[in-house]
């Protein structure tokens, strides 16, 4: 008997014709009925989700004024900054001679490479200057 009633309600439900009260009947049925026909199982999931979603509330930590949160964040950030600068200073002074040597070596390598790059660049510039010269002579010829 109940099965027939629910079947009719579901049909109305899919047509968008059930009232809120009828939808409550459906929700309660699907919540407590254990032996659901296989083709009705999805309704249980949907109604369960709707009930679950209705309980979601605004995160309470966010209710504080955002301005206050911002000041706190700024304070925290500045403290972190100062601490990290201090710490990096300590680590800097603690570098071993070996590390310093290594750093110097890497720096030298970097320097030579940059020199190479700039040499190549200059060569490029010379070529372009030559092009200028060509242009000039061709202009002369045209005249």
């Amino acid at each position, binding site marked *: 008997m109940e099965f027939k009633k629910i079947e009719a309600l579901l049909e109305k439900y899919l047509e968008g014709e059930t009232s809120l009260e009828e939808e409550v009947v459906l929700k309660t049925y699907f919540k407590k009925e254990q032996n659901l026909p296989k083709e009705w199982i999805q309704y249980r999931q949907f109604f369960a989700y709707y009930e679950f979603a209705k309980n979601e509330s605004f995160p309470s930590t966010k209710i504080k004024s*955002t301005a206050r949160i911002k000041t706190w964040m700024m304070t925290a950030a500045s403290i972190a900054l100062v601490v990290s600068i201090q710490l990096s200073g300590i680590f800097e002074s603690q570098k071993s001679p070996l590390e310093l040597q290594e750093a110097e070596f890497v720096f030298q390598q970097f320097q030579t490479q940059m020199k190479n790059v700039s040499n190549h660049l200059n060569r490029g510039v010379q070529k372009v200057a030559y092009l200028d010269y060509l242009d000039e002579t061709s202009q002369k010829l045209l005249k």
Partner: protein
Amino acid sequence: MQLTVDKTFLNQIDEIRDKIFRITKRILVSQEEAEDATQEVIVKLWQMDASKRNGFKSIEAYSVTMAKNYCLDRLKSKQAQNLSLDERFGVPTTDSLQKKIEHKDELTWVGLLIDRLPEKERMIIQLREIEQYDFDQIASILNLPEGTVRVYLSRIRKKLRKQFIEIQSHGI
């Protein structure tokens, strides 16, 4: 500075805040954006004259309409920036949806399916199935005829059911 504390409004605001949060989250599909949108709407309600506030037939319906308009404006400006909404909000594409579903329980599937609907359909599902508003309330919030809301709702219910069955039959 004089603050007139309106007790009834204070009581209403908590409930309204949660509702607005759920609705904005459904439209914007992003927790963070929904939090911002909710704050924005609540601030606007606070700044309103008490006399104006009390003049509304339902402050709740008014706030929900305001939240809806705010969200739609947000979405529009996102589109104007030429960003794909899906990328912007991390709405799962079909591929990643399949992957996500494998690891989640069935309750979450339903949520994912709903969040993939177009925004108008998401709103209708939220207002009817979750917030349980009457058709005439939904119609006035969305500025649509009641009949259209019913037609939409029927279409969405059928569509969701079909999609859910498809997912199940893929044997995940």
